[in-house]
């Protein structure tokens, strides 16, 4: 998980354009794009190391970590420093390999178009992590930014929206305010609720379940939830 901090910095430094989860995924086009990689890399059943390492199970792999491939010192160093291949780091690497890993022997100059990279990543992930089988596998997509279109913003604070969003909360938190193992969130003052959720969102509060949930919510969504739970009868 240390890689996330590093990757956030990378995204800022190189201006990698965030690609919403919606558009990460034309694997068929990615297969075509992979042809320019195939002179050095193999992927799929029976793939072996060639000029470059094989690319099966790439998502979640520490950089420079295949035992049977001789990496550059720079790639090994990147792995030692915490570089793990996931959607974010691969995007940065494919965009400009030597900007991310100094001294890499990969001579490819880089793929500039964000959509090309997204499609290629979709092809690679088809041969890689399967979170359905190993839930702790690296994410296979990027979160969307959850900025709401102005037309949708009109529903912010709508109790119906808060109630809908609350469906995700009530898998764990009980609507009746029961407080065993997992604290009640029913009847909280709006301000307390919003402050707490943003504290999870910024990872100041530590529960990883709540960090994940809050991290997936926009400001308006949090406000809607707060409004809903504040007025929920116990």
């Amino acid at each position, binding site marked *: *998980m240390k890689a996330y901090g590093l990757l956030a910095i990378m995204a800022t430094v190189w201006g990698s354009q965030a690609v*919403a*989860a*919606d*558009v*990460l*995924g034309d*694997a068929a086009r990615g297969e075509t794009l992979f042809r320019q990689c195939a002179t050095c890399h193999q992927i799929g059943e029976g793939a072996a190391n060639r000029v470059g390492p094989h690319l099966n199970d790439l998502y979640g792999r520490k950089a420079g970590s295949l035992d049977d491939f001789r990496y550059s010192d720079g790639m090994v160093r990147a792995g030692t420093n915490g570089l793990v291949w996931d959607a974010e780091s691969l995007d940065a690497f494919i965009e400009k390999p030597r900007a991310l890993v100094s001294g890499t022997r990969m001579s490819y100059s880089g793929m500039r178009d964000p959509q090309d990279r997204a499609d290629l990543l*979709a092809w690679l992930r088809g041969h890689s992590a*399967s*979170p*359905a*089988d*190993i*839930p*702790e*596998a*690296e*994410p*296979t*997509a*990027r*979160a*969307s930014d959850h900025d*709401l*279109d102005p*037309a*949708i913003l009109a*529903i912010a604070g709508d109790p*119906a*929206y808060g109630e*809908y*969003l609350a*469906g*995700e909360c*009530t*898998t*764990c*938190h*009980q*609507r*009746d305010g*029961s407080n*065993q*193992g*997992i604290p009640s969130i029913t009847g909280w003052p709006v301000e307390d609720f919003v402050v707490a959720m943003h504290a999870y969102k910024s990872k100041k509060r530590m529960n*990883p*379940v709540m*960090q*994940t*949930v809050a*991290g*997936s919510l926009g400001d308006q969504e949090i406000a809607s939830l707060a409004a809903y739970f504040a007025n929920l009868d116990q």
Partner: protein
Amino acid sequence: MKLTRRLFVGASAASAASLSAPMVMGQARPRVVVVGGGSGGATAARYIAKDSQGAIDVTLVEPSREYYTCYFSNLYLGGFRELDSLAHGYGTLASEYGINVVHDWAVGVDREARTVSLAGGATLPYDRLILSPGIDFVDGAVPGWDLSAQDVMPHAYKAGTQTALLKAQVQAMPEGGVFAMVAPPNPYRCPPGPYERVSMVAHMLKANNPTAKILIVDPKESFSKQGLFEEGWQKHYTGMIDRIGPDFGATNVEVRPDTMEVLIDGVAEKVDVCNVIPAQKAGRICELAGITDGNWAPVIPHTMQSRIDENIHVLGDASAQGDMPKSGFSANSQAKVAAMAVRGALTGSQVFPARFSNTCWSLIATDDGVKVGASYEATDEKIASVEGFVSQTGEDAALRKQTYEESIGWYNGIVADMFG
């Protein structure tokens, strides 16, 4: 105006609603039939009935009068729960939400006529059908084993009598005996489940039969929470558990229920208890409905609609949806998305963008709980994971205890969310 994902979803629902309007207006109330009363089906039925406030006629078809949750059934094996505490009835769904609960088997779907046929002879018409049947086993997946052998070598992967049988067998093991588990290949229900089960069996044996051994025969290279489980087994059950992976023949396994033997790459091992968890597929009704592709039923991530028939939604274990593990939490999460989409299509109610999340807790020993979880987003291709977390090795005891207590709170929360 820029077409965003959210507007697209809303626009799609509006279109669907207008297209279905003549059908809806021609009858008293639109009809939804839900097959399967587990985490997906019960949740979907409850949310549709609750949120439509009587505008939709909901029928839930479930053969069992009491549903035993598969999650926490391992804790019953370990002595941390009573079996009765895992049983839940459908009375509240019927009495408080007006759901027509039918205890019968669904044995066929006529997609043209939009009807479900039941073993008892009844035929149920629907405007939308939700299938949430859970898993069935792949025939011949473990040579020598079929359902006729489940009383000798239980799978215990559908909770209830099978779970009770497995526990009784473990309790009856001779001193120093061997408990074997034939673990399933991917994908299967509850990725950490078999290994939590091993932990709970070890916990019971440590107290009552400490010289007994556990043998896992596992066709997979790796498994969920592997580092956490292996650390826990070393700490709590030192020397008790051995795992044979594919490198040592675990992909070539046969069982002999008559002699209680497990053959691993042709070498016979005599065991005292053998828990066979075969390869899995979508519940049979999905196959009968003709909506499977291989072993599972592919779905559209934004709505959980079948990719083969838009009038059918498939939830939980049976669906091929992408990155979400097959778990009760996932099914519950998917059910809410499907319920919203169904309401939008049948009544024109507002449809919000799909949201999915999942957390899986596992107990390794007393007060030693671990968890893994993630949030997901619907893409056109699949439900894709976007952020996740997993417990770390070496965590302190207080955190592990808190994690276990959190799982108890979750259990209470999800069954209330399902059954009202």
